[in-house]
């Protein structure tokens, strides 16, 4: 049921506007996180209204997803030469064309693809790739391969969208510890994993005194001001998140298996002003060194079902046009199978960009299965920062060169 009464961006709905108009914010959805004023003034509301409603959800498939067994190049005989045992048989594939097919477990995402909503980008990686999960993922988080940056790419994107850091709850990170990707200079990400446990451990008798910790207080300086604000908003945010969760209707649908995307859907349904969501997959089975078929089939099915279910929820909530999801891993896997019927850490991988605003299809140059590089690995044909730039510029409308430190050619995957 599409919503037609949305007045402004950043998830400010009519009832919130009315609440602000009445002069009382107190416990409002506009409560900021971190360096954010709790009562938005007229000017900042107007500024927020000028911003778009667009939301980016990054779904990180940590573990090293085997791209070749995700979007399968079945038309290339070399594929079956490299993978005589674990290669996915042509008859099992959900075919795209004469060359490629979806892994059989990915019906959920294939349906979205058939509706023209999925851009598949092949050969995504970077030069001098690391084969370490942790090193490589830190490169993806910082968008600084073989280098470093103390802030993450989404944290920097938030700064580009809102340089003064006035907009609250700009970034939400569904994780038990803060993902480097969301670390920002001007925005404090709202980080939680379990809405029901995002709270202080307190003894019953301490509760009354605990409420006084955020008592109004003249800050002695900038750091103090910041910590005071986080103290107050941590209490607020945990209450808001728990309220959003308890009201979220999707959790009553037993057919939905959204993994951690259910928390994102809950916050979107509750009109959170968040533009950037980061959801790293937990307990991933993607690190398929051994006996790959069973865990990989299962993990892809879970993920594809979750993605399809999430967009189904966005349709129900009426926000499907405003949401784009981006899926990546920290690397792909070795081209030839190993002796354990699995695959080892590799290089280039397949990425997905999904949403109603996306022009579905195949993007990027599929890497050759004949000319392997770096010991049986795929050659990178698209730098991952090109995909980042595409999202930052093409979807969110921010200055990608500023965020990434240099200009990258974008992919034309968004509808006008």
């Amino acid at each position: 049921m599409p919503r037609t009464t949305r007045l402004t961006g950043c998830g400010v709905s009519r009832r919130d506007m009315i609440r602000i108009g009445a002069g009382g914010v107190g416990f409002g959805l506009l409560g900021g996180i971190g360096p954010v004023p709790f009562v938005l003034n007229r000017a900042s509301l107007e500024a927020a209204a000028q911003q778009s409603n667009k939301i980016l959800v990054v779904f990180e498939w940590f573990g090293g997803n085997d791209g070749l067994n995700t979007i399968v190049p079945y038309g290339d005989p070399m594929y079956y030469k490299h993978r005589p045992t674990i290669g996915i048989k042509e008859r099992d594939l959900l075919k795209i064309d004469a060359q490629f097919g979806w892994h059989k477990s990915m019906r959920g995402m294939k349906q979205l693809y058939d509706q023209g909503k999925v851009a598949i980008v092949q050969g995504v990686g970077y030069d001098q790739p690391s084969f370490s999960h942790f090193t490589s993922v830190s490169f993806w988080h910082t968008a600084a391969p073989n280098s470093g940056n103390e802030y993450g790419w989404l944290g920097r994107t938030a700064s580009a969208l809102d340089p003064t850091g006035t907009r609250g709850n700009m970034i939400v990170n569904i994780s038990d510890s803060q993902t480097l990707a969301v670390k920002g200079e001007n925005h404090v990400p709202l980080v939680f994993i379990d809405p029901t446990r995002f709270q202080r451990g307190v003894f019953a008798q301490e509760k009354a005194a605990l409420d006084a910790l955020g008592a109004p207080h003249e800050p002695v300086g900038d750091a103090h001001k910041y910590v005071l604000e986080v103290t107050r908003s941590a209490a607020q945010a945990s209450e808001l998140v728990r309220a959003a969760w308890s009201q979220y209707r999707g959790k009553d649908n037993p057919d939905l298996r959204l993994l951690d995307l259910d928390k994102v859907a809950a916050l979107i349904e509750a009109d959170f002003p968040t533009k950037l969501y980061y959801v790293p997959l937990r307990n991933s089975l993607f690190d398929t060194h051994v006996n790959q078929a069973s865990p990989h089939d299962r993990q892809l099915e879970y993920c594809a079902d979750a993605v399809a279910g999430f967009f189904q929820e966005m349709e129900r909530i009426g926000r499907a046009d405003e949401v784009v999801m981006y899926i990546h891993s920290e690397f792909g896997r070795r081209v030839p199978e190993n002796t354990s019927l699995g695959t080892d850490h590799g290089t280039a991988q397949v990425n997905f960009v999904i949403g109603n605003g996306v022009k579905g299809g195949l993007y990027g140059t599929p890497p050759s299965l004949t000319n392997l590089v770096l010991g049986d690995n795929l050659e990178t044909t698209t730098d991952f920062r090109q995909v980042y730039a595409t999202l930052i510029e093409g979807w969110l409308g921010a200055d990608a060169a500023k965020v990434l430190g240099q200009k990258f050619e974008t992919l034309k995957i968004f509808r006008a």
Partner: protein
Amino acid sequence: MATRIGWSPGPANWKDDLAPIASADWNYDRAAHLLAHAGFGGAPADIQKLADLGLERAVRSLVHYESIPNPKMQPFVESGLWDSTLNGFPESRPEATDRALKSGASMGVDVKPTGNRPVQAVSDRFFYWLRATMLETRRLGYWWANRMAQTSHPLEQKMALLWHGHFATHENKVRDYRKMMQQIDLFERGATGNLRDLTVKVAQNPAMLYFLDAQYNVKGAPNENFAREVMELFTMGVGNYSESDVRECARAFTGWYFDNLAFKVNPEKHDGAAKTFLGRTGNFDGVDVIEIIFEQPVTAEYLAAKIYRFLVRDELSPDLRKKLGAVLRASNFDVKPLLTVILSSKDFYSQASYGGHIKGPVEHLITMMKHLGVDEVPGVPDFNQSTIAMGQHLLNPPSVAGWAGGKAWITPGLLIARGNVAREVLVPDMTGFRDWNFVAGSDGVLGSRLRDGYDIGAATAVSDPSRMSTFDMVALERDEQFNTRISGYIGWQQAARKLIPTPRHAARFDLSQMVLQGEAKTTGEAVDYLLWRMLRVPTAKATRDALVEFLTRELGTDDIGRAATYMEDALRMTVHLIMSTPEYQLA
């Protein structure tokens, strides 16, 4: 007791002024400020000692600590997990098993002549060391935390912690606790020494050589990883050199490598030809390029600012940055003169620096120990789990850029975690605690399946084997050279058998004694005493009043003498609340 001097920051116009404060401006509160920033805070007696010394001698005792005995420092006792067959540890499991398939052995383990999974023990050996070094690194981090808590040289430890985050490597990649141990030693010894010397030693440190891929940096095929970081993150900051400087710098470092724990140079792999680097041309090697980097004016400013932001406050003006750089350059990169200037300066005691620092998680936890009068970091809660929850995994910084620090230490979730860690220290869950060193997670699930009699094929199936048919299980068991999933479990078991267990005691302290010695007669005085002892920034009056109300209600009286025999738990909860205040996160 002596009159308590409360919060007394210097005037706002002391900001950015590096001239020392007058001796008349020295007092107990200024000494408390000094110890909080140059160390991990302290008990009132520690602070009084510094206050009695006077400014100059107080600063000198912190900066020139070498002559002060440090009796509690003990070497790390290793569990004995490493042996020489692990030298040249393979970078990956495939490399480990490929080696065995080619040569018949790998990491001191032979391939089985017949039977299924002939290379299993090799794969197990690989995972043994991954688990062993991870577990020993936890012990190493805990040992280091105790050094920080027990040292008589707090500034030495504080600076070592800074350099660990600055010249960042993480055990996750280095995979050798012994190399991380070498680094702690390097950062302690070089804590307040010469920064050029420290940078050279870091460039020749095995953990760093491995971490930034020195082994791939050879004549004809230079790897730019270290060359870039040494300029971008360690000395100059981005934008002060060109891509060509990066390439030339990499050439200068070619041929540097390590063998086990020793730095080596391979002259055959070193590119001895001329390089043009930062405007100079010559047959430079790594030491030469570091010399040149330290000739750049920006280097002194970059490093001085890093030290300042770590010790004093997050914000500093471009003007102060220049002044600090000049001090460091004037001392030819000896750190002690800079530290003396900073810690004696009007700027340091100005309003802007009072409460201008957000304590990092490790610093925060050690400071808690000091405030509680605990001289040994407890085993419950686990040190590493506590600091990880608050956002800092010692010996595992998130990337080569280290920890962002400052405001990045505080998120809503991390702030709540700080309060929750305080509760675990004050009211530890002694009966619910489980030692994570002996909880193998998903590896452990495999173990219990093996112990239930399932074969390896069934045990490593993703589904629960008790719900599979015999037919399915037989189909799973098949010929293979090894099974790495089972190796994760076996490796953990093998490592845990040898691992020296971490003592799991609660923090030992007595808050009842503390408030009685603080001469508190009423609950109001008790709360005021604890706030004075623990906070560097005053809390809101409403917060203080709520704490008094809480304590009075819990004790059933406002008379501390009347409640002396039963007040410990209520005082512990009071301190839990104090440590959860926004003000407690600051120094």
